[in-house]
């Protein structure tokens, strides 16, 4: 078994490594999480204590329900059986504490009934003890916080999950010992009552044992799974102080509370909120940002770490007087089923660096940073230049640095990885500079960047790769100019194709999205040439030596143009992460380029997007073929491409796709709807690509087909909010007002917003929403978008399209 075959998941506080289809290794770390963050300190002995407590209770509850524990490999690693984990967390409580108390005290028993599905009398005090323990449920959310649900909602949730499970892997009728729950029509109902029953018995056992040790188990959380025979088993952890509240029993009886669990830390942090500055990074000596943007003081961290370690040790000593965690687990040691070094090296290989740099300052780049930030082992995501308004969470912008200072910054701060958003910094050679400084970069090299910066080169590659693309010719600037400058005799000195309308005239190199003109007649040709004439000075960065990348314009020393046959049809785009000849396609997204409803008005950078968009299998195969052939040609010519590759395609009425262009990056606003639905497998492949290592096979990853990344299955919709002037003319700075509490499932993704919510670009940002159904996603998005306003009376109103996802084409001019 090689380390590349082990699938490693870094949880907030545990590492979960699949060593085969049937077995996993769970490693407890000294990390601690609270309030959805991994806190910036380690808690001494925590990993050992947690493992020992879990092992003890797994052993002492086997008579109630089987569990996933097989044996211990060392003081912090245990071998467990794999299973399909139920999408519910089951909470058992014997007192009115935690989130139940919060709801009860704030909104009363009616709300508790509504949210938790639990009947409670009026007038209970905090920590009031119930006559018997009660069970509540939360869903394990694919994104965001876990959500409390009533038993009825939990049943529905289980039913959906079971249906999906049965579709994926129908239960074999021959399996004699398959649990009876799958033979019943009310399988979800039965499963839920099994779970409830088991949870109550487990909790009773936990209370019985802890009471003998002078402790009261107030509440705890269980997770269950179905094993390979589809029998219910207890998974995750059991009765650990991370997932339970323990208090001193004697003190509790006299009306006092001493927490011997993570609650101890939560209470202090809530009391000392000023020290827990989640959204306000403090400047630090010699560095523009603190390492962990959400903490103010090191000594506070140290005191919390030591204090919590003390409480955990105290709990352990109560449960196991005179024993060490090692005493509790040592009898259950068993030999490693795989070489421990291969597990450790798989972990190391699949561990992202703690400090990552994202290049860019647009909405796409914000989304990239947010995507990387989700990795538990990443401490900080620096953004260059980023925007001050992004600071918070793990993001910290470096907008005060020049690009030379950036390389220095990366070296002194030991940045482990740089991920590029936009194309210009790549073409300018920033990725090459960082690579020279020893920092792995996710960006194509300069040869790869030519796919975007030289349209003539791209056309040559496409032709050599035998990819379908429009016929084209090249023309120099002098040749074009001669068409409008009346020369003697009026003889056309230029290529005949320039008279054969319609065609597309494209400036060869980078032109900030404005280098393409459609030409239908002589007049439009004249306008196009005038347009180029006005802008060429600004565009000719390659001629002026501001680009490091090669172009024909630079080679010839004169601006070059591509004259391309106009292809009719509809435009689609496809993005793939590429590494040599390997590639994985991201889910297809659709963006809406026209400014106004009904696909009308001028072209823009994009007014909205949706994902995923289904493509017919034939078309999907054509797209794959285009990537396959292009990457193969590039590799065979000694220029293997690595990084994201964006293909703009035109699909005609016969469902035949041809390549319009390539971009060497993720698209904006497609990224905003694509990345949030993707997970660690893409992130890991991005990292391996940057290291120039082959992608791991992840042979046991569920539902993983070749060249496809796993998607969370949610529909996403993104509506851009722009200044009313956009895209014509520059907008004045305005102050943006964003609703504080966005509807669940909605997020504000900023692009042109600076500190103090001051707008600084035409496209200001947008609202992203996610839901199970497209209609739902669109509806909740449009609930939020109109609430985004500019400050001040009589101020302008932000512009947005009202028909993203379902464009109203009735009576509107058709898109060209």
């Amino acid at each position, binding site marked *: 078994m090689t380390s590349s075959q082990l699938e490693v998941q870094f949880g907030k506080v545990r590492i979960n490594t699949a060593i085969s289809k049937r077995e996993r290794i769970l490693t407890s770390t000294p990390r601690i999480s609270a309030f959805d963050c991994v806190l910036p300190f380690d808690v001494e002995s925590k990993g050992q204590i947690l493992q020992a407590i879990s092992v003890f209770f797994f052993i002492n509850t*086997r008579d109630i329900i089987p569990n996933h524990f097989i044996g211990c490999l060392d003081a912090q690693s245990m071998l467990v059986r794999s299973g399909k984990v139920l999408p519910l967390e089951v909470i058992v409580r014997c007192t009115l504490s935690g989130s139940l108390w919060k709801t009860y005290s704030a909104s009363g028993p009616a709300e508790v009934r509504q949210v938790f599905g639990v009947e409670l009398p009026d007038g209970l005090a905090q920590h009031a003890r119930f006559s018997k323990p009660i069970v509540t449920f939360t869903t394990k959310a694919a994104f965001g916080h876990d959500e409390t649900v009533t038993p009825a909602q939990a049943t529905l949730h289980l039913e959906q999950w079971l249906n999906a499970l049965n579709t994926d892997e129908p239960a074999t009728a021959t399996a004699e010992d398959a649990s009876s729950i799958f033979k019943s029509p009310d399988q979800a109902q039965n499963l839920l009552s099994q779970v409830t029953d088991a949870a109550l018995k487990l909790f009773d056992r936990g209370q019985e*044992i802890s009471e003998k040790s002078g402790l009261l188990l107030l509440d705890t959380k269980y997770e269950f799974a179905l094993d390979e025979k589809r029998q219910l088993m207890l998974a995750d952890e059991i009765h650990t102080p991370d997932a339970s509240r323990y208090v001193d029993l004697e003190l509790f009886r006299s009306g006092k509370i001493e927490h011997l669990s993570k609650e101890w830390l939560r209470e202090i942090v809530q009391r000392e909120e000023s020290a827990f500055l989640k959204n306000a990074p403090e400047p630090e000596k010699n560095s523009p940002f603190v390492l962990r943007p959400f903490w103010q003081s090191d000594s506070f961290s140290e005191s919390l770490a030591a204090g919590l370690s003390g409480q955990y040790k105290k709990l352990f000593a109560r449960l*196991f007087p*005179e*024993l060490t965690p090692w005493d509790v687990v040592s*009898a259950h040691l068993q030999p490693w089923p795989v070489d421990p070094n291969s597990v450790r090296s798989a972990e190391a290989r699949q561990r992202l660096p703690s400090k990552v740099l994202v290049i860019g300052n647009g909405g796409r780049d914000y989304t990239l940073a947010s995507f990387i930030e989700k990795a538990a082992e990443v401490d900080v995501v620096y953004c260059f230049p980023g925007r001050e308004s992004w600071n918070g969470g793990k993001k910290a912008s470096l907008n005060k640095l020049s690009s030379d200072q950036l390389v220095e910054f990366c070296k002194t701060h030991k940045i482990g990885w740089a991920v590029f958003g936009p194309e210009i910094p790549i073409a300018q050679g920033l990725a090459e500079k960082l690579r020279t400084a020893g920092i792995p970069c996710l960006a194509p090299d300069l040869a790869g960047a030519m796919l975007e910066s030289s349209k003539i080169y791209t056309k040559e590659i496409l032709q050599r790769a035998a990819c379908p693309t429009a016929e084209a010719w090249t023309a120099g600037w002098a040749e074009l100019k001669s068409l409008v400058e009346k020369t003697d005799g009026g003889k056309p000195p230029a290529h005949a194709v320039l008279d054969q309308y319609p065609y597309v005239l494209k400036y060869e190199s980078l032109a900030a999205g404005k280098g393409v003109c459609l030409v239908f007649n002589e007049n439009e040709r004249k306008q196009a040439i005038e347009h180029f004439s006005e802008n060429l000075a600004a565009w000719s960065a390659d001629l002026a030596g501001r680009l490091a990348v090669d172009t024909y314009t630079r080679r010839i020393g004169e601006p070059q143009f591509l004259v391309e046959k106009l292809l009719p049809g509809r435009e689609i785009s496809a993005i793939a992460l590429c590494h040599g000849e390997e590639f994985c396609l991201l889910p297809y997204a659709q963006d809406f380029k026209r400014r106004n409803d009904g696909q009308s008005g001028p072209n823009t950078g994009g007014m909205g997007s949706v994902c995923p968009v289904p493509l017919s299998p034939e078309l999907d195969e054509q797209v794959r073929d285009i990537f396959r052939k292009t990457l193969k040609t590039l590799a065979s010519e000694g220029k293997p491409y690595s990084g994201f590759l964006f293909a703009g395609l035109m699909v005609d009425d016969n469902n035949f796709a041809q390549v319009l262009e390539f971009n060497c990056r993720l698209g904006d606003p497609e990224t905003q709807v694509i990345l949030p639905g993707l997970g660690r497998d893409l992130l890991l492949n991005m990292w391996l690509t940057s290291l120039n290592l082959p992608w791991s096979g992840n042979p046991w990853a569920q539902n993983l087909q070749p060249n496809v990344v796993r998607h969370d299955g949610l529909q996403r919709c993104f509506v851009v909010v722009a200044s009313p002037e956009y895209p014509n003319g520059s907008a004045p700075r305005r102050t943006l007002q964003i609703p504080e509490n966005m509807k669940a499932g909605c997020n504000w993704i900023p692009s042109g917003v600076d500190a103090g919510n001051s707008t600084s670009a035409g496209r200001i940002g947008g609202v992203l929403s996610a839901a199970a159904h497209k209609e739902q996603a669109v509806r909740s998005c449009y609930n939020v978008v109109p609430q985004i306003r500019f400050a001040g009376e009589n101020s302008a109103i932000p512009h947005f399209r009202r028909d993203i996802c379902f464009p109203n084409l009735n009576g509107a001019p058709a898109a060209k």
Partner: protein
Amino acid sequence: MIVALCSGQGRTFEAVVRILGQHVSDLICDMPDAPVIQRAQRLLVRARCVDRNSFPDRLSHEKQILKELESCGNFQLIVLLGYMRILSSEFLKQLRTKWPESEIINLHPAPLSLYKGAHGLNYALDTKVPRWGITVHRVTPELDSGPVVSYRTLDVYPDDTFETLRERAHPQEVSAVLEAIDTLTRRRPLQ
């Protein structure tokens, strides 16, 4: 696998089983009314009673114990946790012949050098010693002798009663037994 031999309450037995789980497979008890039997049943440990009073002499009683041991499967270790009878040298010889790989240890609530015999904690109270010890040792034909495998010490206070001293000694006993088991099974992990 471990087989425990007990005669009485079985508090230490329970604590050890809670930690070792199914590694403790069997209990053999010589007193039919001993609470340890019920504890074992609750902990899903097979319990059998070889009532000492239904045998005419020690040898026939021990013979029956050996018979029961044969049905205990492939045990690696016999642990005496408050077993109140002395095992004969004939029994130990038989044990070594039949199970040459297995070990037998005894929990003795006293330092071996200071006190041999039953009720070690009472002796500590009676003699008003300021400190006392808990020993786990390999069993040899001689009463409460044999190489020490693990050892713990504890304070004895002037106002200690048997109950308070027993409370203080209990976790030390559990700890000493676990250490001894860990030491003896390190080369050959528990099945």
